[in-house]
């Protein structure tokens, strides 16, 4: 769940907007380059955005007795790197802020920072690390999606604790408060998101081998393919 409209003091709202803007601008550039150089990836890009759309519309009950929704940003971060998700996540957040009164325009910068920047980068980092140590693809995909989802809401908790430190216990006290609302609620949802991302990745491995190879998700295959290509040439 995102920070509601008007619930960040103006200075914080502006600061998070300034922090997010360069990531989104860079994301737009890298996305247009990707589409220009590889027009065939447009469809898969659309599918990654669609995945974020579906998951962030699913409000699910959680162990804390409240509801929240996953983010769906891990998949796109693995496939197209985090800058692409800075754009796709921002589009999703704009849709929800404008039509659903969910999140908001004044808190857009902060919400973009948590969901479209911090989450994807955290998930992508975990994915790359695990892949470097030859962890199986689906384990890495699950971990990346789990971390992208959970870290988004940890960042949201930090953002709110920075804006509203507890009068008695200060920043840490407020962080505990917001963390118990957002982060703990999110743990089972992050597991769900991990499982759903694994499901979609399995379907992609079945249906889009060529695409995944070009994007570097299926590495071993890439080597064998370049070998066979060299032979046929």
């Amino acid at each position: 769940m995102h920070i509601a409209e008007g619930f960040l003091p103006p200075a914080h709202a502006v600061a998070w907007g300034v922090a997010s803007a360069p990531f989104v601008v860079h994301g737009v550039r890298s996305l247009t380059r990707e589409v220009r150089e590889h027009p065939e990836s447009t469809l898969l890009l659309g599918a990654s955005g669609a995945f974020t759309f579906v998951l962030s519309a699913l409000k699910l009950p959680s162990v804390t007795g409240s509801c929240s929704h996953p983010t769906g940003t891990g998949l796109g971060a693995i496939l197209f790197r985090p800058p692409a998700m800075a754009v796709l996540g921002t589009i999703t957040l704009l849709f929800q802020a404008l039509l659903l009164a969910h999140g908001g325009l004044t808190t857009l910068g902060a919400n973009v920072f948590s969901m479209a920047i911090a989450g994807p980068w955290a998930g992508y980092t975990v994915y790359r690390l695990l892949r470097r140590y030859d962890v199986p693809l689906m384990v890495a995909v699950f971990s990346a999606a789990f971390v992208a989802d959970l870290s988004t809401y940890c960042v949201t908790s930090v953002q709110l604790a920075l804006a509203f430190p507890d009068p008695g216990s200060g920043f840490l006290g407020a962080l505990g408060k917001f963390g118990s609302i957002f982060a703990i609620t999110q743990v089972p949802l992050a597991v769900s998101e991990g499982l759903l991302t694994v499901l979609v990745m399995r379907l992609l491995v079945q249906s889009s081998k060529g695409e995944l190879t070009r994007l570097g998700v299926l590495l071993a295959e890439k080597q064998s393919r370049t070998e066979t290509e060299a032979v046929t040439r």
Partner: protein
Amino acid sequence: MRKNTRINLLLLLAVAALAVLPLALGLGDHKKEPFTGSDGEAETAITEIEPDYKPWFSPLYEPPSGEIESALFSLQAALGAGVLAYYFGLRRGRRQGERRALEGATGNPAPGSAEESTAERS
């Protein structure tokens, strides 16, 4: 292939179970209003910490009722699901078409490697 489908179904089942369990176990029973949004709870926490805080901006458009809001949320999910379904349907159709074209050209079932290289070229 059949084993694949079974694993995919198990994944979906696990997600469904994770969503249903908190409801079935009554984990929201200790609350006055069970299963509200965590963003609303955060708003309450903010007013607890700073009772004087007033939101300084309100949404430009607010769905007039809970029904309209859930309709718009469903619209969001449906749009996303539609695009995903289009993607996988298109891929499946393309693969089938390629396989058929190959079978027609060579007269016998195409080996896996040839099928893959055409998939890459397309």
